[in-house]
């Protein structure tokens, strides 16, 4: 495969420096999670099953591959306290849930990670489109997923106040499975009506978080009232939660937002994230790049690799397709390699994020037919 050198490619010095930072961070996180005085009951118990000593044999990120793959099933059920590192015991703790459409949801304990992740993310947002001190609208799933906490913190960190409209994705999935499409439409309308009411109530809302589906529905709802996202005063949109395709993104930018930011005054940044990893930012979208959406994990706290479908320790070549493998290494949570339910193409390091990224993220072909995705 021929890979041309793009303008945005990171230089090799930055790539090397980022790798060194990652190695040091991986070493420190393993020391933290596997030391008797600081590690969580879960990982200290797991340590006994390992065929190596993480404290002496993990010297850098590459050694993380010595761990067996993380199984997200471990996150189902209690006691949730087993995940709290001893070094953080007693701190106020939240639980963030993922999945949960059937059976017991997967849970992750969070103390400060969401604040750190979203503060880091905040620094990637262009202030021109996400003005400091302006107010936000959070339109999307919250409830047990607790996304509202993170978005609200992001908004407060930037000096604003966040208005919140909740949507329950578990109910949405039930409606689809039951074939209650009229109820689904009404529920969506119920959410959008509330959002439009807030947006037209003179609250100085300039920024928002929402999912792609809800962004489309909001734009349509506004269009029916003879207005638009740009006209109503939104300038910055942080979107995520479900799949973005280049074609949908193009449609969104060209037709829902009124053009690329310099033309429309509205900047939309797709993100890729989940409860396990945090938030991956995207390279700016351009028409020259055919609206490719390429995500970069918040290294060194999290890493995304694109691995061979048959060998999860083998990274595919740039531009090649593989399964998304996540690593999370924060003081609160340790995931030494988890095979996500997604696949995509490996992207070259970007100047602002000098490490591997992923584009074309979509449901992993092995699960695609059995998963209900992109419903909200």
């Amino acid at each position, binding site marked *: 495969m021929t890979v041309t050198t793009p303008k945005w490619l990171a230089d090799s010095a930055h790539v090397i420096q980022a790798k060194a930072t990652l190695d040091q961070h991986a070493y420190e996180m393993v020391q933290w999670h596997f030391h008797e005085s600081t590690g969580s009951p879960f990982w200290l118990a797991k340590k006994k099953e390992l065929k190596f000593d993480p404290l002496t044999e993990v010297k850098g990120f590459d050694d993380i591959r010595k761990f067996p793959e993380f199984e997200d099933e471990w996150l189902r059920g209690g006691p949730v306290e087993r995940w709290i590192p001893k070094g953080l015991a007693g701190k106020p703790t939240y639980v963030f849930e993922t999945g949960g459409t059937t059976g017991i949801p997967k849970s992750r304990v969070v103390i400060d990670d969401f604040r750190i992740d979203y503060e880091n993310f905040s620094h990637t947002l262009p202030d021109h489109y996400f003005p400091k001190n302006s107010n936000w609208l959070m339109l999307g799933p919250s409830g047990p997923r607790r996304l509202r906490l993170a978005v609200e913190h992001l908004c407060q960190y930037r000096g604003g106040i966040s208005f919140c409209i909740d949507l329950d994705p578990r109910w949405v999935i039930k409606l689809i499975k039951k074939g209650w499409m009229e109820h689904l439409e009404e529920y969506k309308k119920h959410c959008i009506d509330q959002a439009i009411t807030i947006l037209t109530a003179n609250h100085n809302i300039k920024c928002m978080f929402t999912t792609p589906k809800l962004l*489309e529905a909001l*734009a*349509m709802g506004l*269009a029916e009232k003879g207005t638009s996202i740009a006209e109503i005063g939104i300038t910055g949109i942080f979107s995520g939660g479900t799949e973005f*395709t*280049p*074609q*949908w993104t*193009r*449609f969104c930018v060209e*037709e*829902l937002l009124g053009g690329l930011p310099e033309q429309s005054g509205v900047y939309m940044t797709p993100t890729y994230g989940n409860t396990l990893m945090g938030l991956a930012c995207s390279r700016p979208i351009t028409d020259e790049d*055919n*609206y490719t959406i390429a995500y970069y994990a918040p290294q060194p706290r999290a890493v995304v690799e694109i691995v061979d479908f048959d060998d999860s320790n083998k990274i595919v070549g740039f531009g090649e397709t593989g399964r998304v493998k996540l690593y999370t290494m924060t003081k609160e949570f340790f995931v030494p390699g988890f095979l996500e339910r997604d696949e995509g193409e490996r992207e070259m390091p970007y100047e602002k994020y000098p490490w591997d990224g992923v584009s074309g993220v979509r449901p992993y072909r092995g699960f695609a037919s059995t998963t209900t995705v992109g419903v909200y």
Partner: protein
Amino acid sequence: MITIHPLRWGKIYKSLDTFDVIHFDTGEAIAKIGQVNGGMVQMDMRKCDQARKALRSIPTDELISMCEKAAHLFENETLSVGDGTQSVDEFIHQQSASTGLPEHMCRNNMKKNSFVLSNMRKILDALTRGLDLDILSRGYGEEGRNVTVSFQCQSPVLGAVLPNNSPGVHTLWLPAVPLQVGLVLKPGSQEPWTPYRMISAFMAAGIPGEAFCLYPGGHDVGSTIMARCAKSMIFGSAQTVQQYSGNPKVQAHGPGFSKVLLGDDVVDQWEDYLDLMVESVASNSGRGCINASGIWASRHTREIAEALAARIGPMEALPPTDPNAQLAAFTNAQMATGTWAMIQQDLSESGVEDMTASYGPRLIERERCAYLRPVVVHANSPSCGVAAKEYMFPFASVVQCPQKDMIKSIGQTLIGTAITGDEAWIDELTNATNIDRLNIGPVPTNRLNWLQPHEGNLTEFLFRSRAYQIAPLRVAVGS
């Protein structure tokens, strides 16, 4: 390889998402089709009034002439389709390659569509019962009895979610154009050819592109068209028809359960009508809703079934380019195996006999597709489940049923050909509400008179008769 782009009010949209149309037998990609999403349809529908406005700027008479010209172009000329051009032969080959229909059948369907288009003047005259079409265009007028009549157009566009398998059905939406109603079409993923070629012909004939949208895409595109167009038609299964039953916004077309009924007065001469039965069951590979799936008579049914089986049972699966090919392939082999499994279940019922069993295996499985050779079953009673079945290949149940019970036993029937001279029975048939198109006498079910409405009259679907009173204004002299 040709790339076909969505058309949004006549303007090409080059989508980043494309879908490969695959040759049913070789698996080779024969075209790429750009895909849109439901959101785009919704955005575009805000401008749908422009479609009717563009068409109303052209007098109806002129539009009809343009349809005649489009018919010629559609049937005879090389047209621009997608990012390339398409000759007649290429069209036939592409349609056959993706739908599995033999090429000569594609050619016949093409002629059928062209015929309807070139006879639009007569067809509209029949559908409107001779109404001056300017009255529809202007919205009101004087019909000739010194009475003002008014017909209110119910939608600026007609939406249509089109099928994959049957290129003949496109005749149904064609009259919308001279009625000055725009078209918003979702082509079937395997049969984009006719809608694309037809719209290309319309535009080449001078009809404004602003009147047309072609939206290849997923299910959300179909549901958005249905939700956003005030009038639309959909082609689907019996379940689809049931879903939209009673919905005044939707004309739903599904299985026809068409039948040939032999009256007691003619049944002893059944052999005279064997050709008619063969044509009704097997023409166009039995795919259409207008193909007969039942032959009903009070006696001689076993002999009829045997004779019909002897005529169509030996049909072989031949290559689509073979001029003698009479069977279309199931491009999705699983559909054929599933259908065959259902038929075997039908055959297990007491009183049901497979009359084609002695003509060799019916299910022919190929590497990428499958064929079902014709099946004729005999059912000794209307209560047999198979009497109410219809499948997408030449399949017929020959059902033994007393004439007096026939009308109530046949169930919903799109086309009923009743071969009889029995005036009392003809009167009952005429008054039956479960038969849509009624043929009295030896008319094969597949031979449609285009001057007759089909599953409802399109003009009545698109226009509503309403009151319109005019009083002269009192204007002061000199003002």
